[in-house]
């Protein structure tokens, strides 16, 4: 049974169909990539799956066999479905450690006090945020450090699945390489990953399956190399065969 099943999900804003009948399945333990041009509905799809800030207008989202499309965002997070945001996001006025502690505590209500602190420390160390930085205000961190911290707060919540929204955006090439390595290590922990990314090399190097969206609809789905070679994908998204080669 798939860990995540998205079935005919739709979301509209007035007359604009941002997500229009999208269906796919993500198996436990895999890294599943989602690509698509700007405005294709990738982030809206993430929002409808996680209920943050809104759920779908119609369709079903099943996580571990249970329908979650009607649940509040925090309730979905507590079921083990964590997400990151396209823009590097953190709780600016809290310290680095407190940021991770929030993830360790609230998304996993079985943990509090020393257990939550241990989980926060382990997650921060795992992503490579050095202990001397734990007392710094998160708002003082660089873009890359904030992105890494966002991953740490997600890992601290001990999720079964992690939805990453363009983790490579605004990063330098060395930082992207570090991110690829980190995502591989996260997957090696047994966390299933659903990944949106514009940087195709990033997606290709990580994903076992690739879904391409265009105008809110599924354009192609399957093996990443085969998908990006499809002429309609090239036409709609890549624009040139040079990248696919």
């Amino acid at each position: 049974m798939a860990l995540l099943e998205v079935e005919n999900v739709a979301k509209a804003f007035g007359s604009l169909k941002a997500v229009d009948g999208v269906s796919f399945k993500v198996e436990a333990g895999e890294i599943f990539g989602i690509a698509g041009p700007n405005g294709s509905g990738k982030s809206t799809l993430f929002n409808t799956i996680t209920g943050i800030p809104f759920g779908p207008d119609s369709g079903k989202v099943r996580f571990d066999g249970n329908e979650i499309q009607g649940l509040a965002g925090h309730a979905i997070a507590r079921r083990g479905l964590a997400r990151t945001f396209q823009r590097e996001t953190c709780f600016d006025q809290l310290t680095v450690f407190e940021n991770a502690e929030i993830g360790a505590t609230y998304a996993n209500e079985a943990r509090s006090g020393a257990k939550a602190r241990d989980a926060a420390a382990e997650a921060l160390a795992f992503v490579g945020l050095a202990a001397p930085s734990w007392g710094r205000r998160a708002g003082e961190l660089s873009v890359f450090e904030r992105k890494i911290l966002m991953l740490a707060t997600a890992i601290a919540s001990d999720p079964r699945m992690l939805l990453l929204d363009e983790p490579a955006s605004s990063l330098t090439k060395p930082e992207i390489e570090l991110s690829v390595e980190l995502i591989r290590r996260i997957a090696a922990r047994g966390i299933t990953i659903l990944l949106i990314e514009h940087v195709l090399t990033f997606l290709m190097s990580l994903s076992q399956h690739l879904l391409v969206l265009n105008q809110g609809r599924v354009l192609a789905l399957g093996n990443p190399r085969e998908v990006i070679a499809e002429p309609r994908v090239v036409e709609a998204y890549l624009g040139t065969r040079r990248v696919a080669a």
Partner: protein
Amino acid sequence: MSVIETSAPTVSAPPRAPGRTPWMTELAGALVGLLVLALLPLVVGDAYGRHVLIMVFIYAVVASNWDLSLGYGGVFNFGHLALFGIGVYAYSLLTKLAMIDPWVALVASGVIAVVAAVVVTIPILRLKGIYIILVTFGFAQLVMQVILSQSDYTGGTQGIVRIPGLYWFDHNMVRDAKFAYFYIALAMLALSTLFLRVFVRSRTGKSVVALRDNEEYAVSRGVSLVRQRMITLAASAFFTGIAGAFYAAYQRNASVEVFGMSLATIVLSMVLLGGTGTIYGAIIASFVLTVFAESMADFGAWRPMITAVLIIVVMLVYPGGIVGMLKALWGLATRRRA
């Protein structure tokens, strides 16, 4: 300098709260502050001076609790003074009409304010910004209109007079030059501040700041917006209601002026001037603004204008308020010493 470690990660034993002032240090500082305030009657010899300090303590409780919802929670609760007013009238009605013991009525007023805060939270649970201001301001006006309309019990525009005061065994509270009320007010401020600081340092307090900093991100980490917002407003209401009750017991009268914009503006000035999201800032600003206003009594109509200019100047130079100013000065001093 990057803080990312690219080598194999190691986990050291996590400290309790890295980057935060240790509890014992904060407690020691707060006790010193409390001791200084407790000794103030030795310096302030006259009853009027102690009256001013009692008013400072009342304002400080209301302002610091407002700082919890506004500064920490980021909830623009413009009905906060209505919670104070509810405390005033709850105490007045409980003691005068229901003949309940004043101390029991004092605590009950805090509980009633909490219930009112929960009621007002329901319509604003999913609102943001200006809409919260509108609803909470409307709530304050509604409470005032209810009190005015029930004049058989509340005295309407005349208010309530000869409200039973507090007592302390056989001590004469009326003819002790306000010593007893001074120390009761100080105890109320101390308990309120302890409660607020424990709250903001707790995991619930951190989640409240997380929601303020980034609501969607906090929700994505399992924080419930509805639950935490309700807890924040309820927590900010208890001592505000008690302060209202204490005010009624101390002044021995109640009027709808406590719902007016004048008092709300004064207390909001204290929250902003002190520096939001600090608790201590609102307390310091209550002291500074009240004492400053008293010292300018001879300036008549110029007094509020001078006070307003002072607030504007401080806020322009130090947007973080008095606490921001003190931090900047402390940073300057430590850099020079280094």
